[in-house]
């Protein structure tokens, strides 16, 4: 039995998407830049993919740019906007719990002479709008806030932040990393005053190595790679047509019945949390005001600490039973450093060392949750017996 509860790391590709991508690779393999028919067809596919994504986001087709994934989207948005708007100011704002694709990019810009404010978060992993309000200055050119935190699933007040930013400094750009949020929430950049939005294909049952950056048409941006000038010169490089089509199809499939799926995931999450609380000493991280229903956080992420059991050991124990989860966040679990997000929400050492993340998808079933709980009930007492002093 394989129970995959690590969907925030990556997801299983929808079979329909895989078929489409395969067919595109084998049959419709043209280069959109070619002048012949095959190239024209390929260009048509790129436009088709843009059109369906634009519809989901309620933006214009020309505002959709394809990238190699979430990391590139974040890099392009932050560096591209910072460079293009340098004359207006050199101050940037972000939060302490961003993904490394944002945080490391900010650190890089600091070495280029930019100043960055890192907003703190409360125990539920959310920023305080007052802090944001106070941080914005006339020199602030960009605010970057993630939609859904990848480690604890906290949701940021994106729409409110958008309104606030534009009220204080209409020139300040607003970037949102929606890699974990897209496909799990309705996101309309225009309504939320978002200027740039990062999305990744493989988190929504699409292919790896493909992502999107939405860039509002009025946004002043520089590209950060140089070459053949594809995608209006913002992102050179031959278009990954099968990848774009795959991403677009996956998004269509998810958004086709998003409300029902979200409701089902929230029910599963509440059910899982109820089950977890039967384990002595267990702590659920990132809940809003201790709301055990899990509403107010992402529907698909449950961050759990089992004090006394090291996260890696619990992970391998579950693995042994065919259950795949993650210790902290997959992107940082190769380095045995404590998670920045968990530290930012004020977790102590016992919590830092014992946190694992479960993340659901549309494939997750109640039976899988029951089995997972059963394994945890069975094995945790034994694991607690053997601890390091």
């Amino acid at each position, binding site marked *: 039995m394989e129970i995959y509860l690590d969907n925030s790391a990556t997801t299983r590709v929808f079979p329909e998407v895989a078929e489409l991508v395969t067919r595109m690779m084998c049959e419709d393999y043209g280069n959109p830049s070619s002048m012949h028919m095959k190239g024209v067809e390929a260009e048509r596919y790129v436009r088709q993919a843009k059109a369906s994504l634009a519809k989901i986001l309620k933006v214009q087709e020309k505002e959709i740019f394809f990238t190699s994934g979430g990391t590139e989207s974040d890099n392009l948005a932050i560096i591209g906007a910072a460079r293009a708007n340098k004359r207006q100011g050199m101050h940037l704002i972000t939060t302490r719990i961003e993904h490394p694709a944002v945080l490391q990019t900010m650190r890089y810009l600091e070495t280029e002479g930019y100043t960055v404010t890192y907003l703190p978060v409360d125990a539920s992993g959310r920023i305080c709008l007052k802090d944001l309000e106070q941080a914005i200055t006339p020199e602030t050119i960009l605010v970057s806030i993630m939609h859904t935190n990848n480690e604890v699933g906290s949701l940021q007040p994106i729409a409110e932040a958008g309104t606030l930013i534009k009220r204080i400094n209409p020139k300040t750009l607003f970037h949102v990393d929606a890699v974990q949020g897209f496909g799990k929430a309705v996101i309309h950049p225009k309504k939320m005053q978002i200027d740039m939005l990062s999305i990744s294909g493989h988190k929504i049952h699409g292919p790896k190595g493909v992502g999107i950056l939405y860039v509002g048409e009025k946004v002043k941006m520089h590209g950060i790679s140089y070459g053949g000038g594809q995608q209006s010169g913002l992102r050179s490089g031959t278009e990954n047509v099968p990848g774009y089509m795959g991403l677009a199809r996956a998004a269509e499939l998810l958004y086709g019945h998003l409300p029902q799926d979200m409701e089902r995931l929230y029910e599963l999450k509440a059910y899982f949390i109820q089950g977890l609380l039967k384990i002595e000493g267990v702590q659920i991280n990132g809940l809003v005001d201790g709301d055990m229903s899990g509403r107010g956080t992402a529907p698909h992420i449950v961050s759990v600490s089992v004090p006394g059991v090291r996260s890696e050991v619990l992970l391998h124990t579950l*693995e*042994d039973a065919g259950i795949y989860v993650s210790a902290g966040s997959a992107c940082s679990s190769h380095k045995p450093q404590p998670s920045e997000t968990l530290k930012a929400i004020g977790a102590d050492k016992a919590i830092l060392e014992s946190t694992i993340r479960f993340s659901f998808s549309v494939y997750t079933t109640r039976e899988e949750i029951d089995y997972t709980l059963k394994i945890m009930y069975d094995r945790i007492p034994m694991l607690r017996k053997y601890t390091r002093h």
Partner: protein
Amino acid sequence: MFTAFLIKYAEIGIKGKNRYLFEDALVQQMKYALKKCEGEFSIHKTQGRIFIEAQTEFDFDEVVGKLKTVFGIAGICPVIAVEDEGFDKLKETVVQYIADVYPGCTKTFKVHARRTRKNYPKDSMTINMEMGDAILKAYPEMKVDVHEPQIMFNIEVRERKIYIYSEIIPGPGGMPVGTGGKAMLLLSGGIDSPVAGYMIAKRGVKIDAVYFHAPPYTSERAKQKVVDLARLVSRYTGPIYLHVINFTDIQMYIYEKCPHEELTIIMRRYMMRIAEHIAKENECLGLITGESIGQVASQTMNSLIATNEVCELPVYRPLIGFDKQEIVEVSEKIGTYETSILPYEDCCTIFVAKHPVTKPNVNVIRRHEENLAEKIDELVETALKTDELIIVSE
């Protein structure tokens, strides 16, 4: 330009009547190494030297890189082999050779000719003088120094061809693998044990290895890391038979029954016992560990008494007098360092006590091991029965 290599070997030259055994083993190892290179080569032994001649085009750097992993090779001399087309032609070739290999050379040199083809019109002394003359005429900046030349131009007149060489690329030294028997390496994921394996293999010893795996406390990646390390070591040793032993139950049982300060020592004693058992089954003549005196609590001299006494086979500890930095240097040289420092936990560190004993009393340890009497034999037997064998080669 180069079409052949002269292989120099140091130690195996002095092995008396067994010499041919060592030479044959060396040729065997070289053949094995060259099989992985592009091109075809013939290898022949003549008068205390080994020649490799390329039969086809080949990649010089690739071949030298591979030869540098063959124990027993002291030096690799890239050789130009030419037909005998008269002495004037030979002079031209040597002058051109210097232009190619030592552009703008101002060094001192000496010509050293040898003839195995005795009917060559000039004798060795004459070749030395006339060739030296020709070099001086072509490169007036160079000087002759017959006592301590910076470059020695070797010219060997053989039956079919004339060989020219001067450069000596250092080889790894040591003795050909397989001439010294076989030993069982206790391989962890750390920096030390791969180096220990390398050092013993360098003395001509073939290596088998054993790794103790403790799921779920150690991960699949930790095991993969050990396989990767074995693969890196196997570039020098040839294929390694890696035994993976599931140690979890034994470790848990010790944890339950013995004082925690002695956990590591008692665990090590069981690892040694199991390693020795597999070693004997596989005709190994000794065990190899990466221990170094005082590096950690389980490697003090007192602790070593405790871990040593459970084995009959000799335990080879080639790093015993090395500082950590010295070990790191070797591991960087042989290319295992980067893999060794990947951060996956190995089974020795999971349950380590805050203050493990550094001066264990063997009698006390033995007494505490008696607490294990009820189940330990059965657990060891199961561990041995579930031994997973992975054959690792490059």
